[in-house]
């Protein structure tokens, strides 16, 4: 039932979606600071605008006005490429996430996602892995020991947890029998949300995803108390902003992917007219983002050996067993 949209529809839709994601990122930072503040008996930002609502804009203006500093010995084109690579790959991954069934407005077909790809899941992981180059290249090109060490930490963590992340979604792929995200959503609408049969996969996905986006308690790459900053030590101004942006957008994309794979995508609980689908999608993504913020305030950071042990000795076996058991059950039943 996939219908190809007109090329200009895709163009406009990509533009709109990118800007919505960017706005979502801006207000995610505010929401995070507000929620964390309240959980720590603070107010959070409340000076810029009513309830601090203009804080992201103030932050943006501040970052844009900062000097574009660069270490003298940095490899300049790689140094500049790093944040762009990270940010552009982060934005690109969101294009395959379906947020609606597609709409027919005035004879023009508007699809439910920017790009409906048959192998969307593999594409998403591939682009996501490419994003890791942004971090490594940036850390290496900075010509700083701390940035290099931070990049290595990031690299080691991303590689370790990417395996578990990919294995945890395998159960969903086996159950749906497809790599296309639209078909996975459709399969869930036909049966049930995969969070119920794939609870183990869901939990592994959340934990590995937290590590993939280097969020607390797996935020070793930028452990503020131990390191200066990690791979972006030598970055300032909007280049740092791009790195920060790519991390938050990766988090949004991850939540969107989690909703798509495990929580029924844009389908609502009882009542889903076509026009309400994006609202359901946003609501579910919001709940997951809240969960990530909640986790950040609650759990202390892991030690490096704990991180590696947890990734390789707990998450990976659990994810593998989950995939194998799912495969056996799907074949047997």
């Amino acid at each position, binding site marked *: 039932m996939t219908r190809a949209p007109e090329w200009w529809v895709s163009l406009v839709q990509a533009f709109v979606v990118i800007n919505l994601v960017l706005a979502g990122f801006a207000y995610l930072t505010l929401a995070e600071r507000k*929620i964390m*503040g*309240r*959980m*720590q*008996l*603070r*107010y959070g930002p409340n000076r810029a605008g009513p309830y601090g609502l203009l804080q992201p804009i103030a932050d943006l203006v501040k970052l844009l006005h900062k000097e574009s500093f660069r270490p003298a010995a940095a490899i300049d084109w790689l140094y500049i490429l790093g944040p762009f690579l990270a940010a552009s790959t982060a934005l690109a991954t969101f294009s395959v996430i379906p947020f609606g069934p597609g709409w027919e407005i005035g004879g023009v077909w508007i699809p439910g996602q920017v790009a409906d790809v048959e192998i969307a899941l593999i594409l998403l992981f591939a682009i996501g892995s490419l994003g890791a180059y942004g971090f490594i290249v940036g850390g290496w090109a900075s010509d700083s020991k701390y940035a290099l060490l931070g990049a290595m930490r990031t690299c080691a963590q991303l590689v370790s947890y990417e395996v578990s992340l990919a294995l945890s979604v395998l159960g969903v792929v086996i159950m749906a029998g497809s790599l296309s995200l639209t078909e996975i959503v459709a399969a869930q609408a036909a049966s049930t949300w995969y969070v119920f049969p794939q609870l183990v996969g869901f939990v592994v996905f959340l934990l590995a995803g937290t590590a993939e986006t280097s969020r607390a308690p797996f935020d070793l790459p930028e452990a503020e108390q131990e390191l200066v900053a990690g791979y972006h030590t030598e970055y300032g101004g909007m280049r740092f902003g791009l790195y920060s942006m790519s991390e938050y957008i990766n988090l949004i994309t991850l939540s969107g992917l989690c909703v798509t794979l495990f929580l029924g995508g844009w389908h609502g609980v009882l009542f889903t007219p076509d026009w309400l689908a994006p609202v359901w999608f946003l609501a579910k993504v919001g709940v997951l983002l809240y969960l990530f913020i*909640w*986790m950040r*305030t*609650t*759990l202390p950071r892991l030690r490096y050996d704990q991180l590696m042990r947890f990734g390789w000795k707990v998450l990976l076996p659990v994810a593998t067993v989950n995939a194998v058991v799912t495969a056996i059950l799907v074949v047997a039943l």
Partner: protein
Amino acid sequence: MSPQPLDSLKGFAVTFRQIFRKPITQQYPEVKRPVYPRFRGRHRLWRHENGLEKCVGCSLCAAACPADCIRVVAAENTADNRVSAGERYARIYEINMSRCIFCGYCELACPFDAITLGNEYEISEYSRDDLIYTKDMLLAEPIKRVPVADRERYDTPEPAYKTRS
């Protein structure tokens, strides 16, 4: 004792509960926390009741100052120009507030209780020059902006050198 992973989950309940409590933040510029009665802030020079300055220009405060931020230039009192109660007076008395560490040694060194440290702490300026306080500024009544906590709440008595006349 429950196993460790469950204990970690308990933490989620703890953080979630805090959302419904009122933040304990005091919104500073609007709400000013009363300072401790013996809080050492902006300096003040004093006069006798008859209007003569207490400072006699002995420079003991300048000698005691570890930050070397006080400058005193003394001059003789004459019959038609009587400024202080002593033989001499401070023709120039300057405190460089950007240097001052608010240790209170000047207050302790002063034999006439001419200089004391007040409670004002909002004394930032846009220029360093503005932070050099002259004698006129120090003698003038400061604009009271700082609430001071009730002395009865603290068991430390007022120091003798402050209560002495």
